Structure formats: structure tokens, C-alpha cells
């Protein structure tokens, strides 16, 4: 790619580096509606599927945003052994639906193609490989028939599928998914669950914020429980799986309300 969007940000993965390794002292904007997180330690092995669980305002999204390089942080966050933002093409981020202006006139296909832009850079025009990746992603999310539709005409579940298709089209090794199951229909839930299976079969790493406790054991290898911006112990009887996170100080935070 001759004109990358950020010249030094396409480092290759270091051998044997975990997908995500972090000790975050603090992350988040002061005075922003997104809650800040404090003292979160993370170690996610490559190929694992991890759920971030917690009530609204727990900091699930903030952790994902920090790993995606969207918000400032104190401490250390490494993705495949590199500092945040050093290997952007390897990490795909699925935003919450509200962050996209759905009234803008682009087609679903064009939206999904944006997943390829990190590989295209300035002046890059999509080639055959890019179109194949987009067609495949649309197929996997079962929205190939919507390819020519304007994004403003999609239902909520269809919007979510289109965004996930974009993340898949990027063909990243790390998927950061911010509440993809939030307020979507049953069919979309099923499609997303299938996608998670598929992604696991491909050995890709998934970090996902979720409210859905019922499917944790079926869909994930590990779960991290967050509350009020810190790591908390899992509620009694809850799924844990791989140990992937801990409070930095060793002392788990406390949750005012029942965790989750």
C-alpha cells in the first residue's frame, strides 16, 4: 500500500505474543459520558474468545475503545506485542450502532467495503481481492441480498449485521465487538453466534462486550466481569473459563449494585 493512512502503524505480530496484553492504570476522557476505567489488567491469548460482562456504565465499551486506540490511556496496552495503534490493520472494531450516521447516502456494499480501507490507504481503489472479501462477509452475515440497499433503509438488526460484515471484511486477527447483540432480533442473534463460531474456527481472537449471560459458556472461552470501571469477582455460579483479567493491585473492585 503506497499511501497508508498512518505510515508506521502496520507492524506485523510478534511471534508468540498474546493478542492483547494490558495493564491499564486509567483510560477515558475526563467529564465524558463514557465511564473511565481504572486498574484493569488483561492477558488474552491469541485465538481466545472473551466476553466483557457488566451493567451499563461498567466500562465494557471503554476497555474496547482503549484497545482500539480511540481514547487516551495511562499504563500499557499491547496488541500482538505492539503498542496500541501500531498494528491497526490487524484489529477490527465494531462500534455501537448509534455511532454511525445512518442517514448518510451510501450502500451496504460500500459500507462493508470501508473494512478494506485500512489496507487501501489514500488513493487506493478496491481491487478484486477487496470485492471478494466484501462479498464473502456479506454472505457470512446473510445480507448479500441487501448489498445495493442504502444504509438508511436498514432495520436495526440489519445495521448490526452490516457493521459486523465490515469488521469481518477487514480480515483482522483481533475483533473488538462493542455490544453486537444489543437490541437485535432473534435471527440476527443466531447469525452473530454462527459468526463467532466461524471466527473461532479460523483462530481469530474476539473481545466482545455483552449483556447476554445465557450464552457465555456456549460462545466464549473466558469472561471478565466489570463494574464501575474496575474488574470485579464473577457473581456466584457465573461462567469464568480462562483467566484473562485481574485488577492491577490484586484487590478486586466492589460493585454497589449486584454485579450484572
Amino acid at each position, binding site marked *: 500500500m503506497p499511501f497508508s493512512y498512518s505510515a508506521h*502503524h502496520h507492524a506485523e505480530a510478534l511471534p508468540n505474543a498474546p493478542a492483547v496484553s494490558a495493564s491499564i492504570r486509567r483510560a477515558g476522557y475526563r467529564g465524558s459520558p463514557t465511564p473511565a476505567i481504572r486498574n484493569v489488567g488483561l492477558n488474552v491469548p491469541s485465538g481466545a474468545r472473551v466476553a466483557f460482562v457488566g451493567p451499563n456504565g461498567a466500562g465494557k465499551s471503554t476497555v474496547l475503545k482503549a484497545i482500539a486506540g480511540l481514547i487516551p490511556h495511562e499504563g500499557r496496552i499491547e496488541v500482538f506485542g505492539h503498542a496500541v495503534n501500531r498494528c*491497526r490493520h490487524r484489529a477490527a472494531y465494531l462500534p455501537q450502532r448509534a455511532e454511525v450516521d*445512518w442517514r448518510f447516502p*451510501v450502500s451496504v456494499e460500500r459500507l462493508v467495503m*470501508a473494512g478494506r480501507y*485500512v489496507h487501501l490507504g489514500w488513493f487506493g481503489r478496491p481491487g478484486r481481492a477487496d470485492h471478494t472479501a466484501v462479498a464473502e462477509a456479506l454472505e457470512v452475515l446473510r445480507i448479500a441480498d441487501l448489498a445495493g440497499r442504502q444504509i438508511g*433503509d436498514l432495520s436495526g438488526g440489519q445495521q448490526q449485521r452490516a457493521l459486523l460484515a465490515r469488521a469481518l471484511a477487514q480480515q483482522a486477527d483481533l475483533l473488538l465487538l462493542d455490544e453486537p447483540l444489543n437490541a437485535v432480533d432473534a435471527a440476527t442473534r443466531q447469525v452473530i453466534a454462527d459468526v463467532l463460531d466461524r471466527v473461532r474456527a479460523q483462530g481469530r481472537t474476539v473481545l466482545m462486550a455483552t449483556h447476554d449471560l445465557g450464552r457465555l459458556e456456549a460462545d466464549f472461552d473466558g469472561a471478565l466481569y466489570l463494574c464501575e470501571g474496575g474488574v470485579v469477582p464473577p457473581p456466584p455460579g457465573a461462567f469464568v473459563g480462562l483467566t484473562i483479567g485481574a485488577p492491577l493491585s490484586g484487590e478486586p473492585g466492589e460493585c454497589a449494585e449486584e454485579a450484572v
Partner: protein
Amino acid sequence: MNLLLDPLRFEFMRTGLLAAALVGIACASLGVYVVLRRMAFIGDALAHTILPGVVGAYLLKVNLLLGALVAGLLTALGIGWFSRRGEVREDTAIGIMFTGMFALGILMMSTVQSFRDFTHILFGNILGVTGDDLALITGVCVLILVALWLFSKELELTSYDPVHSEVIGLRTDWVRYGLLVLLALTVITGIQVVGVVLTSALLITPAAAAALLTNRLSRMVLIASAIAVGSGVAGLYLSYYFAIASGAAIVLICTLGFAVAWVIHQLRRPRGAEEAE
């Protein structure tokens, strides 16, 4: 037929028509992004802040468009710079720059004996477009179209999903600055045609009308350009035959175009709502 051909005997009419068409294309195509990104206010502000540049150039006896260019670029970058960290809200920054610069322009004008010299800046003077002006207008028009083509995917993505842009390392602020610079250039050409006070109409009205008629970006650019070019040409003919102000005539025809688009949109709406389901 003679009604249409007769005015073309005059060179000022031929140049004027060509200028109106080119400016229409530049303003309308860029205007589509201005409307979709909700930057209408800044388009209007840029047109006004150019005033001190033009007056300064007149006083220094250099090319008026050069003065306009300097003032326009300074404003565009200034607004972007002041509001970049959110300390001053952008619309507030625009409001301050807009009125401050316009007042400076009026103050400078008041130092000159004859206010009349500046009426063509305020209200446009399309029949006074010179060969040099036309060359500049052509250049800007080509630049706008090439830039919109080259950066279409970045302009689109930063408009509807700035978060994804940031994730992939695409600097939304650079795209925005670039757009503001293009906007400053376009506004300068618009001032030749309809003047400082009405230029934002060329940016916004055709694009807003087009947005009511289609939800495809490429068609939006085509329809907006067609409305702007049509209004420019029709307005010029009207002013030729009825001796009325050409800038105002052009803008009013644009407005009429918007009204027609709105009516079409209203008539279509029930069926459109069914299609969306």
C-alpha cells in the same frame, strides 16, 4: 430561439454564462458534502469572512481574488484550529470569526470614500468576469471535481463514521481541514457570481434540493449541479431581459428549484415509506 441566442452576441454574456455554469458545478458538488455533513453554517460564514480580504486587496491594488483566498484560508484553518479540542464549540467559533471578520471588512470599506466600489463584492458582478477570473474559476472547478473523485472514500467515511476512520488511522481532522480549504476556494468563485451575501445559497440550496430527490450520492452531485447550472443560466437571461440583479435572480431560481424538489418529495413520500419496509 432568438431569445436565447440574442444575448450570446455579447462577450460579457458568453463569459458570464460560462462562469455561472462552472461556479454552479463547483458549488453544488462540494455543497452536497456541506449539506450531508451539516456544515451549512460554516459555508455561509466563509463567504462573509472573505470580505476584509477583498477590501484589503482593493486598497493594496492587488487581485481581489487573491485577497479573498488569503482571508478564506485563514478563516477555514482558524475555525478548525480554535475548535479542535472542543474548548470552544465549533458553531460558536464560526459565529465569532464570521461576525468579527465581516465587521473588519465593513470597517475597512468605510475608510474608502466611495462605498459603491464594493457593491459588486457584496452582491456579485457576473457580467464583469474577466478572462483571468474565468481561468481561476475553471481551475477551482476542476480542482474540486478531481479532489472529490480522489478522496471520495475518505470524505464519505469520515462523514458517516468518524469512529471507524480513527480506528484505521484516517485522520478525520485532516479531511476536515482539506474540505474547509476547498470550501474557501469555492466560496471565492461563488462571490463573483452572486456576491458575499448570497454565496452560501449556491452551496446549500441545490444540494439540499438534490438530497430530497435521491438517496444516492453520485446522483445527488449530478442533480445538484444541474439545478445550480440551470439556475445560473436562467438567472442571467432573466437579468438580461428584465434588467434585474443577476445574483438575486440566480439565487431565487435555486430557491424555486428547492421548492419544486420539496413538493416532489412530499408527493412521493407515502410510496417511499412503504418501500423502506
